[in-house]
């Protein structure tokens, strides 16, 4: 193959960094969900890349599991956004204070 394993891993590290930045800086609930999606995709890319280069079907199998679980996570996250928006009329996570001690 022309592309090496390290190239794919570097792209996934860049995506992980962007996702961590989004989680640290943004306070908009929906943007934080975007950042989580980007991080999950970086992890999937890593799994498939290693599975290709150490020829083994485990990488692809785990990536498929991960995609399915991420779908469930997004469904729950979006319904939490809808509930929070209905209660506070805002999507700023700093405003969601009812659990604050």
């Amino acid at each position: 193959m022309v592309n090496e394993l390290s190239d794919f891993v570097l792209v996934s590290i860049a995506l992980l960094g962007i996702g961590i930045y989004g989680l640290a800086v943004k306070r908009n609930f929906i943007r934080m969900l975007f950042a989580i999606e980007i991080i999950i995709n970086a992890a999937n890319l890593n799994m498939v890349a290693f599975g290709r280069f150490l020829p083994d079907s485990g990488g692809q199998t785990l990536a498929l599991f991960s995609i399915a679980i991420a779908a469930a996570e997004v469904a729950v996250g979006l319904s939490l956004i809808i509930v929070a928006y209905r209660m506070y009329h805002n999507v700023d996570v700093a405003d969601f204070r009812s659990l604050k001690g």
Partner: protein
Amino acid sequence: MVDAAFLGLSVLTIVSAIAALELRSLVYGSIALMGTLGGIAGFFLLLDSPFVAMFQLAVYVGSIAVLILFTVMLVKRELIFKKIEDKRRKFVGIALMLVLIVALSAVILDSGIKQITTDEPAVDFREIGVDFLTYYWPALILMALILSGAVTGALVLARRVDEENGQRTQ
């Protein structure tokens, strides 16, 4: 060495990931997120895993991105265009990102990953199916239960409770 397809895909993926987080409008942000997810599907095709690539397209670009778009449309118009972030946190976040990327890249490039090369043919997707039905079947059933539980939970959470004793409780 990398080829042109890899370069194009990585530029598309990383630029649209940044755009998804930084564009002012959430609607354009979620469309940019679709670009990232599609770019990852392209990487899967480059890695000779067409089955995972199609799964990614069907689940992420097909359903999750559309779900996110519809949720964005439920939010008030001013909130879609308002950026909510701290200025001070922004610089700390960029510094954190750069430190993380440099440190992890240094560790990875130092770890002898360059010696991992392969000339063997790619894994056939039939093998994945066999894996799913033999070794991983308890995990598959567990995943199905988790998925149905999560979707039911999401429905229950998002349900609007209307009209109790003439008074709307939310």
